[in-house]
């Protein structure tokens, strides 16, 4: 999955969609708003999703008695 390995490919796409979204809603209602919700929704989801994931890869730390 080299598209995920490239450092700036996906961040660049997300940033561009974000900018398109931010300015789209200035130009009209309806589909323009939908474009904005998509462009800003993507970073919102990508930001929340890793925070909600539970730490499963490692067993919980064993507390010393």
């Amino acid at each position: 999955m080299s598209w995920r390995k490239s450092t700036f490919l996906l961040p660049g796409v997300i940033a561009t969609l974000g900018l398109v979204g931010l300015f789209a809603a200035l130009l009209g209602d309806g589909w323009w708003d939908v474009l904005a919700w998509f462009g800003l929704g993507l970073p919102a989801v990508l930001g929340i999703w890793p925070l909600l994931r539970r730490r499963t890869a490692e067993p919980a730390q064993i507390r010393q008695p």
Partner: protein
Amino acid sequence: MQSKTIRRWSFVHTWTSLICTLFLLLLAVTGLPLIFHHELEHLLGEAPELREMAPDTPHLDLQQLVAAAERHRDGEVVQYFGWEADEPNGVVAITAATAGTEPNSSYTFMLDARTGEAVEMPAANGGLMMFFLRMHVDMFAGLPGKLLLAFMGILFIVAIISGVVLYAPFMRRLEFAQVRQGRSTRTRWLDLHNLIGVVTLSWALVVGITGVISACADLVIEAWRADSLASMLAPYRDAPPLTTRAPASELLEIAALAAPGMQPDFIAFPGTRFSSEHHYTVFMNGSSHLTSHLFTPVLIDAQTLEVTAVGERPWYMDALGLSQPLHFGDYGGRPMQILWAILDVLTIIVLGSGLYLWWVRRRGTASAGREATA
């Protein structure tokens, strides 16, 4: 990237962030309720409610509303009349002891355009939402407060840019959105800081830049007065002070003829910051989506009611006009407000995790130093 280059960028990122973080946290926390100020004012019962009347009840003329406003605020004069899209029967009136009184000493209320009845707007004059607004805008410190926050905004922008530069060396061995959940708390938060920081990049940059522009609004307006307004007022340079004023009744009709196809947003009365000593100035918005955020002033002689100038729109006033929606997030419906709030909270998390990462690394080097010298 050479390690020396990384160290330099790291220094820039660390210090620009550290200096602005506390202020940015203040802005992000106070900004959160402001995104929903309209809804919260309704909830708190602080939004003006006009009485129910037959749907096509005629409006009073503007001079009758001026009289009503000055009856309601004895001894004060009208500075501004403004219109709000969601209350077509209301006129927002701002009054003060004199036309030139500074905005924070003015009084804001709504007039029922059909009856002249005054309806209070408590949220515009004090209370919790006003407290959040003042903390967000100037920390109750006037122009110095605004300029300090503008400077903090510039540091925030530099921190974002240096953060993007540093993103490359940190992510060399990692895939996009890879968070090492199983490793130490510090590693996990480093990955989260990088991921959340980079995905919210566009939004944070746009809100940061438009915030800086808005924080400099006073300077931009002064520039407009000295440049654009002054040139429109050239014929009035030696005019004697205004003694009698023609009634305001027909101002909207006069402005509509001078700027066809536009909508009035507010009227600045003679002597206020947005007008001259000799004019009523009607600020008109364009009718397209984009131009509805831009302002064209129509200067109407306050004695003869003649239109003496229709202002140009200098680029810096357009920048200020467009900065408002792009900073407030109020231009794409309820979903956009919610996304604005989520991105605001994510920014708080980036700020907090950045502070945490700096703290543990600093403590780490301190204890490593102690071990080395022990």
